[in-house]
């Protein structure tokens, strides 16, 4: 279980990374925390000819406020985000998500940018950044661009990143007042990939009606799966138990597209999605009413 031969670079600046990516194109892979890439290389499932290790670049692990939100450098480790007081205060959904990701050992090394660029449909961060309408700053030798989460994740382990692109920063906007959130997932063991999971964000208007709703599923399709029709059901309505049941039913039976594998059938995953959506919406609603 040793990787195939590869060339190794450890640049110390983003511009050097961009030069290397430009030079090697599809042959190059960026190594951030290595929690997905290294196992895949050891299994020889991927055999990049060039590895560009970005761990030596300073100043990519910041967490700071920016206008109406926060910005994170791509090399922020999961544990750093988990313990960060700014995230706890400003992005409580992200704060609650972090301990549900893998194990402490993986969170110590794994990076936020790495997880997002890897774009595993069962990754919590992929669903949660989609639910929070995060934006991603991408650089290449030509310049930089901001891409919203809804356009960043494009398919199975696929993002809009081109071979010469590097994800450098993530921006997460504040939720409006009277918003509530929830992340619910079911995994065989706490650190396993979830059989299914859902991130819910609800915003209420002054009359306690649902102003906007977002339901994003993990392990439910090729990428983060947004249940748009279920959200439409909720929109403008007074949240009730019946409404929650109807929305959960809609999302679980009509919108998500989970697969079969040895851990769960698609049928069981839809059942779980239904249960979890009900629980997530109920919790998000409580929180929205509480004004948190």
């Amino acid at each position, binding site marked *: *279980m*040793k*990787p*195939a*031969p590869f060339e190794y670079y450890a640049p110390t600046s983003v511009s050097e990374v961009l030069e290397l990516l430009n030079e090697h194109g599809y042959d190059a892979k960026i190594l951030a925390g290595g929690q997905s890439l290294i196992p895949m290389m050891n*299994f*020889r499932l991927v055999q990049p000819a060039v590895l560009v290790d970005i761990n030596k670049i300073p100043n990519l692990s910041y967490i700071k406020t920016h206008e109406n939100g926060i910005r994170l450098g791509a090399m922020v480790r999961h544990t750093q985000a988990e313990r960060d007081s700014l995230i706890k205060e400003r992005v409580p959904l992200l704060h609650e998500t972090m301990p549900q990701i893998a194990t402490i050992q993986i969170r110590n090394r794994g990076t936020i940018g790495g997880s997002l660029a890897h774009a595993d449909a069962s990754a919590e961060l992929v669903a949660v950044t989609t639910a929070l309408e995060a934006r991603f700053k991408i650089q290449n030798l030509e310049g930089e661009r901001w891409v919203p989460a809804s356009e960043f994740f494009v398919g199975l382990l696929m993002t809009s990143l081109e071979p010469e692109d590097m994800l450098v920063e993530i921006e997460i906007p504040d939720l409006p007042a009277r918003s509530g959130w929830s992340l619910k997932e*079911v995994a*065989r*063991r*706490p*650190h*396993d*990939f979830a*059989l299914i999971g859902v991130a819910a964000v609800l915003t209420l208007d002054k009359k306690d009606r649902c102003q906007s709703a977002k339901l994003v599923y993990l392990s439910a399709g090729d990428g983060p799966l947004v249940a748009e029709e279920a959200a439409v059901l909720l929109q403008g309505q007074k949240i009730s138990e019946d409404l929650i049941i109807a929305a959960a039913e809609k999302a679980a039976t009509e919108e998500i597209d989970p697969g079969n594998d*040895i*851990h*769960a*059938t698609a049928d*069981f995953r839809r*059942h*779980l999605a239904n*249960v*979890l959506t009900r629980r997530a919406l109920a919790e998000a609603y409580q929180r929205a009413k509480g004004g948190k």
Partner: protein
Amino acid sequence: MTYKVIGKRVKRVEDPRLLTGQALFVGDVSLPGMLYAAFFRSDYAHAKVISIDISQALEIPGVVGVYTAEDMGDDWEPGPPLVSPPPTLENVVFNSRRQVPLVKGKVKHAGEIIAVVIAESRYIAEDAAEEILVEFEPLPAVVDLEKCLEPGSVLVHDDLDTNLAAHLIQNKGDYEGARKEADLVISRRFHLDRGAAAALENRGIVADWDEKNQHLTVWDATQSPIPIRNGLAARLGLRTHQVRVVAPFVGGGFGPKIMMFYAEEMVLPWISMKLGKPIKWIEDRRENFYATTQEREQIHDVEMALSKEGHILGIKQKFIHDTGAFNPYGLTTPLNTQSHSMGGYDVQNYYSDLTVVFTNKTIVTPVRGAGRPQGIYIVERMLDIAARELELDPMEVRRLNFIPPDAFPYDHEIIDQAFATLIFDSGNYEPAFDKALEMLGYEDFIKNEQPRLRAEGKYVGIGIVPFVETTGVGPYEGARVSVEPSGKISAATGVGTQGQSHMTAFAQVIAEQLGVEVSDVSMVTGDTAEFHWGTGTFASRGAVVAGNAVNAAAGDVRLKVLKLASKILETPEEELVLEDGMVRVADKPDQSISLGELALLANPLRGAVEPGTEPGLESTKYFGPAFGATAFGVHGMILEVDPETMMINIRKYITVEDCGTMINPLVVEGQIHGGVSMGIGNAYYEKLHYDENAQLLNASLADYLIPGSTEMPHIEVHHANTPAPNNELGTKGVGEAGAIPVPAVFAQALENALHDYDLEILETPLSPNRLYELLQKKEDNS
């Protein structure tokens, strides 16, 4: 017997080395000029090998050699048959087919080795293995335990006209007669699935042929270095003294590292001799899932006849055991199932029909529990079902059927894995069972706690299951104990150590006999250069068989010490005491001599050794029991299930363990904790998923789910003590006990939690997905 050191909670003397990374594992062995091996393994489970092209692999710089079956010539032969069927049984069909060092002709399970690459590094060896081109003709795979016996089935072994590996019937009393008398006869079909042992350390070998010295040293992560040494010498045409096998610290055995003679164990020493170089191979986790043995897949059709009061009148079972592609380990595992399908109950009529089949899956040999969990599962499940049908308290039904304490030794009149009659040497079951019910607050839980939780919308259930474990079987083990001139004690035994705390427990036995500190004893295990008679660590036998050999040797040294001291101190032996490394005259503490001085005097530089005596204060002794020591225990759990998500949380876990005399309760508890975690895996998490091509779909620890610390409940252990009557220490084995009853406890507790659903669980493991399917089926039927 009152002991000073035996039975004390002595901290493990091996831990400082292990915890600071100073202990030697095979992976730590590094020799000058060492080469590394990587294997080209078949991805197909069943395929003809048409051609092998190694030419491109040989061209990679750093590659030293590539070997296939053809290169082995006459040295190519299958592994030895390790355990034959019991010669005492009549009408046994047994087709012996053993694993091969390198595939010739046809691949019989995925992971079999086609070629070996030897290179200057493991990286280069793996690069080169990727360049080997093999043309296969894939064949349909034999997977299903029943279909494989149908006429016209594809055959695993073409030289047999069947996939039948073995068939035998064991009978006691007259089941059919008993059935006629019965008030209730229940029959059920059980499916028990396959799991991995998944030791933390995979297998590993360093083979070093020293041409000038004409000597082969093999470091092997094995449970049985002595049989490996003997086998290697025989296969390689060497004298036994030319081969040394060392099993250093081994990170978990659990059965698959028994004297298997794996392909790698046969091939690498052979290549080392060809090249005159040391060769190292450490199994990676993916290899482990394909190439290291597994266990538990069985289908049982069981019938139980009972009186309306709940007395078991008889049990009849017909079961199929999957041995995988080969059966080097004979019938040990299914014989254990046969022996444990009556549990600790007084069953007078028993009929057990065993069929063993070959399939294109990884080889099956014992894994911690070794057939026993299957036996306990079916008898305990049947009792739960019977109690429901008879509307009796399931706990009362068990009490009613226990073998009473005055019935021991209890002869079960069938043959067990040791080829002897299955005799339970001793036991006192009911007090241990009562204790378990008390620890879990059974009555209060059923009467008050459960209804209260149910009213809160919580589905919480209780399960309590007794079990037996036959342990400590022969043939024998030995030990050597000697007093050094320093006064310290050196000792050695042939069994290897894979975490069983031998260095502490055996030292306690010696310290007890010789009146020294545990830390004064240096214990060597698993090195044929130190001790070369014995078999190995398996069948929960270390503390019983090796433990009593150590005790006998230390006891003999004690006699020698007393004899010599008596002469020197001019005091009768019976007035001498051994304490603090000294021999003292009992009532005159100033008259004494140290063990070190005595050791010097016993090995004088001048003067002859008198006829009939030996130099030194040393003794080698052996222990071989006629039959095993039967341990007993009870496990109980309280679990909660979320009937929406099907996720299960074990809230409480208790055990009552009776393994006779405990040498060290800490060690016993550690064994139980580890065993229970394996059992929880077998009950809920761990399943090897083979598809219709006999391809393993979850050959990684990401997909093969092992319970870790986050899944483990707190385990409360209570010790009962019924000493084994047939060995001096009174010990019974406990290494496998923890794993044995867990699936049965889990099923009972889960049914109890979901009693509204009237669920019947007849399979293990049971995943949330499977639970969902069972509940859906219930819903569809109603």
